[in-house]
């Protein structure tokens, strides 16, 4: 007969081995403990099995995503090409308007598919973010310059100073995240306003802030803006598919950082991007 203490010790070891994945049945006899071991092993095997199935499903999802991104590229490029060829013909105004519309929608579809593929790749971990210590100044400059053409169209000034500030981040993806936020600010800012990019260093985190002079985000909208396909009430006719901020948050959180937002109708909206140092 085992004493109670011995049995509990044995059970504890079974659990420990189960957690570390080294559990084996000790001996086979008619005791309750031996039966328990068998059932414990069966439970462990089935949970291992379901973990493997999840892994397999993930693999299939990855394939599907890469198929979609590859297989839609050519037809989309062709639609654009043919509509451009069509545009070169002698067309009446009405037809020309329709051709332009086809082009606009095709470009939008291309952008949407690209964004969705990015989101899906980030979510399933196909593209790993590879954060490394670097200078944030160059990323800020690059993102600001990328947003410049659209800002100039609305005579918006983007202020930034290329100060040195270090953080641990993936420069390509962080630039994308930052650009999405700046681009968003440009879209929702009035003409001739100012967007200010600044950096603030803390002991363990570095914060990049993007402040605009837009009309702000309503309190109801605030928790929703990082959702997929969410577009605010006053998004109106702004181009976009509602994935920019979602993607930005995925990217930043994937690197051990986070984003917060403060919004008031008067000074406008400020996004803070915190990255680990």
């Amino acid at each position, binding site marked *: 007969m085992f004493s109670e203490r011995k049995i509990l010790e044995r059970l504890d070891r079974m659990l420990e081995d189960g957690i570390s994945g080294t559990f084996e049945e000790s001996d086979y006899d008619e005791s309750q403990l031996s039966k328990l071991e068998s059932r414990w092993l069966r439970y462990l095997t089935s949970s291992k099995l379901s973990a493997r199935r999840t892994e397999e499903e993930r693999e299939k999802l990855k394939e599907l995503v890469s198929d979609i991104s590859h297989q839609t590229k050519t037809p989309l490029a062709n639609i654009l090409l043919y509509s451009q060829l069509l545009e070169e013909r002698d067309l009446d105004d009405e037809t020309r308007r329709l051709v332009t519309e086809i082009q606009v929608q095709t470009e939008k579809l291309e952008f949407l598919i690209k964004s969705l593929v990015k989101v899906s790749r980030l979510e399933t971990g196909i593209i790993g973010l590879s954060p490394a210590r670097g200078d944030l100044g160059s990323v800020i400059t690059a993102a600001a310059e990328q947003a410049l053409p659209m800002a100039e169209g609305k005579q918006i000034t983007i202020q930034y100073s290329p100060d040195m500030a270090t953080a641990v981040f993936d420069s390509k993806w962080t630039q994308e995240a930052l650009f999405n936020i700046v681009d968003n600010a440009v879209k929702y800012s009035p003409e001739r306003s100012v967007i200010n990019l600044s950096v603030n260093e*803390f002991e363990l*985190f570095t914060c990049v802030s993007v402040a605009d002079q837009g009309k702000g985000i309503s309190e109801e909208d605030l*928790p929703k803006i990082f959702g997929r396909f969410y577009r605010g009430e006053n998004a109106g006719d702004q181009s976009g598919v509602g994935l920019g901020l979602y993607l930005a948050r995925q990217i930043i959180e994937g690197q*051990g950082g986070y984003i917060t937002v*403060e919004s008031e109708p008067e000074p406008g909206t400020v996004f803070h991007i915190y990255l680990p140092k």
Partner: protein
Amino acid sequence: MVILKTEALTKIYGKGPGMVTALENAALSVEQGEFIAIVGTSGSGKSTLLHMLGGLDRPTSGKVFVENKDIFSLKDEALTIFRRRKIGFVFQAFNLIPTLNTYENVVFPIQLDGNSIDEKFVGDVIQSLGLSKLQDRLPNQLSGGQQQRVAIARALASKPAIVLADEPTGNLDSRTSQDVLSLLKVTGQKYGQTIVMITHNEAIAQMADRVIRIEDGHILKGGDVNA
């Protein structure tokens, strides 16, 4: 999955003319993995609420459910053990044990429970909170921000159901506060940890997924997940 829920939670201090209703009919629910901020001015009842969420104080009436368990149905001793296993606390005053070094403070609640230490997880938590190089220091050899990071590590190390933080940056300057909160937020994200934090600071509350507003013992806003 709802991990924390209250039903008509009421706390009355004193009797007769000196009676104070600190909290009245408070109902809230928190989903697994959420980062919640409870905001209110001092005297609004937010500390009373947090103390009852953590089983530190019994309500006059009403219930608190943690992982579907009505915690006040437990006897005092069972409640103490429940608290040690399921709730991680982070206080304004850090409350580290002065004679234990960083590592010992972090694993202390696990040892109290007589459990073996998941070294890999604890090591990861210590590293995530930037404490790797400070493991052998005693609390008095650490700055305020560092001490609070140790307290956060201690709260996370036993993998509790909920971490309750009571003005975690109340004793820290604003720059250090930002760092400590950032780490709380990021480690919460990383480990899918449910966190409920009280603060009177609106800017700090902005970091949370959801803000619950409390005034004069009443929950004004944000009590429900979908509200």
